[in-house]
């Protein structure tokens, strides 16, 4: 489009198509096109197309001040992070990466294997605990997930740990009993420390389409989500759905997963993300 010179109705349609293909949703794409079409049709250069769209996208994303959040003094000891999300979205891997990240800040980290259901879930997290150089609390296969969370928080307090990161089993938000189980994990920790979990991170697979919005809504309703982790952004999926999520819910994207190694977790940066949508 950009080297055709003039923007006409044909180009407007192609730009809207490109927006839709980022998974931002039909309505969001239409809304953005509505606010840019007059400017575009009046006659703009190709660089301007790109910068106008990037600004529209940026204005619709919540900024996450990573330095403030990660760099700040943690208020509670331990600071508890619960990681939740649908099956295969990247929770266990993200827990490992987060543990390493907090460790790099000189914090004493403990992780908890509260996925007591899926085959080899605890074994998988244990390997991550070694990679991150942190301790792990796990139980037996089939144990009550809430009891693992409970024991892990007590252990974290007793050991004077700075950060406790709790991995949970994958679950579809449509499964009521599994969402109840998740609420229980959170409630049980709240009984020990009313402010816990201090962070509830929802992992969203960038490959997911409109269902990611439903996931954010339902997990948000069930346990309250404080931040999103957009995983697998190293693939070709764009993750544009976060625009719709930011539009309807007050949940910022905090991190992005960009690979399968321990260092492949970065703080979310609005400008970089906006430009990535168009490449």
């Amino acid at each position: 489009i950009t080297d055709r010179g003039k923007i006409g109705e044909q180009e407007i349609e192609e730009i809207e198509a490109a927006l839709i293909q980022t998974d931002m949703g039909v309505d969001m794409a239409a809304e953005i096109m509505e606010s840019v079409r007059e400017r575009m049709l009046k006659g703009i250069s190709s660089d301007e197309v790109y910068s106008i769209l990037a600004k529209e996208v940026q204005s619709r994303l919540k900024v996450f001040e990573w330095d403030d959040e990660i760099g700040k003094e943690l208020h509670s000891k331990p600071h508890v992070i619960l990681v939740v999300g649908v099956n295969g979205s990247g929770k266990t891997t993200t827990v490992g990466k987060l543990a390493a990240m907090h460790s790099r800040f000189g914090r004493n980290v403990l992780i908890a294997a509260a996925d007591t259901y899926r085959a080899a879930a605890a074994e998988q997290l244990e390997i991550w605990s070694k990679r991150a150089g942190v301790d792990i609390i796990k139980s037996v296969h089939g144990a009550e997930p809430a009891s693992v969370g409970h024991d892990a928080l007590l252990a974290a307090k007793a050991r004077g740990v700075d950060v406790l990161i709790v991995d949970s089993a994958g679950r579809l938000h449509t499964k009521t009993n599994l969402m109840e189980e998740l609420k229980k994990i959170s409630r049980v920790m709240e009984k020990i420390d009313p402010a816990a979990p201090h962070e509830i991170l929802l992992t969203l697979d960038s490959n997911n389409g409109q269902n990611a919005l439903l996931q954010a809504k339902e997990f948000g309703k069930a346990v309250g989500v404080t931040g999103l982790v957009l995983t697998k952004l190293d693939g070709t999926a764009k993750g544009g759905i976060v625009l719709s999520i930011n539009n309807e819910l007050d949940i910022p994207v905090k991190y992005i997963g960009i690979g399968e190694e321990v260092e492949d977790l970065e703080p979310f940066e609005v400008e970089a993300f906006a430009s990535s949508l168009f490449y």
Partner: protein
Amino acid sequence: QLSGRFAEITKNLRGLGKITDKNISDTVRSVRRTLLEADVNYKVAKKFTESIKSKAMGDKVLRSVSPGQQIVKIIYDELVELMGGASVKEPELKGKKPHIVMVVGLQGSGKTTFVAKYANRLMKSGRKPLLVAADVYRPAAVEQLSQLAKQIGAELFSNKGDSPLKISKDAVKQAVRDNRDVVIIDTAGRLQIDSAMMGELRQIKESLKPELILFVADGMSGQDAVNAASEFAAQIDFDGVVLTKLDGDARGGAALSICAATNKPIVYASMGESIDTLELFHPDRMAGRILG
């Protein structure tokens, strides 16, 4: 504001006496919106609605007693046809034994779980599968398949430290020795843009010539589903698709996108985490789900 709800579209259509250019284009726009909201890829949805439009303008509809009804039927039938047609066929393993089945796809799509479910299904019909843990990358991947194999009472082949290619070759040799008639290879999740990892799959394929290669895709996939599917089809040329996690509320438009982009059939639908939740894929049920 055109409704994206097919129920509303069909209600309006059924009441139509006369077909006009206006109501056909309104309908087509509504259908396109419905498909996009259901995660059907933009280009696929566009092509689909253009084909519906030209069929709707056709003779059969204009002369029909209830043209609106006819258009609804065209939309539904076209969807079913694109996803494989009304008759459901399970891929048969009828080549030389042991039958080699290879399972591939993006990270986290549900391959390992599918391997166990598929093996269990084969065992129910008297087959003796050998599961192969060829994912040497993911932490505890071998352990995961090992636990699943125990759960269903199936044999597992694994070998720490060997390459996926060597593991697969050795597994086939063992299957011949032990009279296992099916070898199912679980591979690591990988990006279609990772040339080294795609090369690894091509190597296994060239060396073992699997009878059946299945591409496992997440049923919640959005616009990008066509990219991975097309690239895997181009580089690996799989035979069929397994769509997973359909027990949730994702509309499943990826089903149409993948079929349209690769011309490969979706053969199985995974409807849950437990072993007994594997079904044959039904295009008609999927069509209804996509249309909402």
